[in-house]
């Protein structure tokens, strides 16, 4: 019996992708059920931010796109303006979080706040196309809400990263 089984890279990618996307979509759907309003904390984004910080960019991007697709499918807004605005918002916030995480200058809270602001501003800009004047009236409230939601998501990622680091250290000590 071989003591070590080699798993191909593609299989590892699919396994990781299925685990992380299930977590992100699951959190997103649970949050939508609990809080159906426009103002969401975005716990599902914590998974995406964690992946970006672990430099698993490919998985993070696919997870972000799957989250938008299945989130809209679940809420019944697939291929509607809400879906299109969410898609653009997710792509922009992903790239902002990716660029900010490239160098290890900003922490998860700062990255998450900027991602949240960009996401909410795209949603607000799309809403402004339907109802003019909404952007100028609500941007200040949205920026403060982004600060709150981004901080919560960022802190969750920070705590989870510490937990993972502690577990890895313990594992190395046992070895």
């Amino acid at each position, binding site marked *: 019996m071989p003591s070590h089984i080699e798993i191909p890279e593609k299989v590892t990618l699919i396994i990781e992708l299925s685990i992380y996307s299930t977590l992100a979509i699951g959190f997103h759907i649970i949050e939508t059920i609990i809080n159906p309003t426009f103002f969401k904390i975005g716990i599902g984004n914590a998974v995406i931010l964690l992946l970006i910080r672990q430099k698993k960019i490919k998985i993070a991007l696919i997870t972000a796109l799957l989250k938008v697709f299945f989130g809209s499918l679940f809420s019944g807004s697939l291929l509607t303006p809400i879906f299109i605005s969410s898609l653009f918002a997710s792509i922009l916030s992903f790239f902002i979080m990716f660029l900010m995480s490239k160098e290890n200058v900003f922490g998860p*809270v*700062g990255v998450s706040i900027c991602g949240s602001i960009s996401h909410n501003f795209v949603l607000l800009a799309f809403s402004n196309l339907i109802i003019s004047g909404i952007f100028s009236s609500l941007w200040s409230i949205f920026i403060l809400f982004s600060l709150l939601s981004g901080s919560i998501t960022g802190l969750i990622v920070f705590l989870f990263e*510490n937990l993972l680091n502690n577990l890895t250290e313990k594992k190395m000590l046992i070895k």
Partner: protein
Amino acid sequence: MKYPYKLDYLIIAVVLAIGISGIYTKYQNNKSENARYLIIQTSKGERLEFDLKCDTILFINGRLGISVIEISNNSARFLSSPCPNKLCVKHGSIENCNDQLICIPNGVLIKFSSGDDLDALSY
């Protein structure tokens, strides 16, 4: 457990300052003006203006159905709406100039105006 990223504190401070100053400016602008008209806009592009001196009930046709809006004592509110969550109805009434209430699912916006708004801008 200490949070080691010092630049994040700077981001929080800047965002907080921008947000609070935005809200403060908006509040000051609203306070200094007296609302005289109620403007109703729909997603179909209709724009209606009503004098706040006349207490009345309005029936506005939106994307999902009819939104009922009440004007009384210089305030306005959604009495009923066909939207699923009724957030516009739960919000209550608006009273200050430039205050607005939006029912996004039904595509109806109500807004107070001092009547000093520009008709159009050209560049």
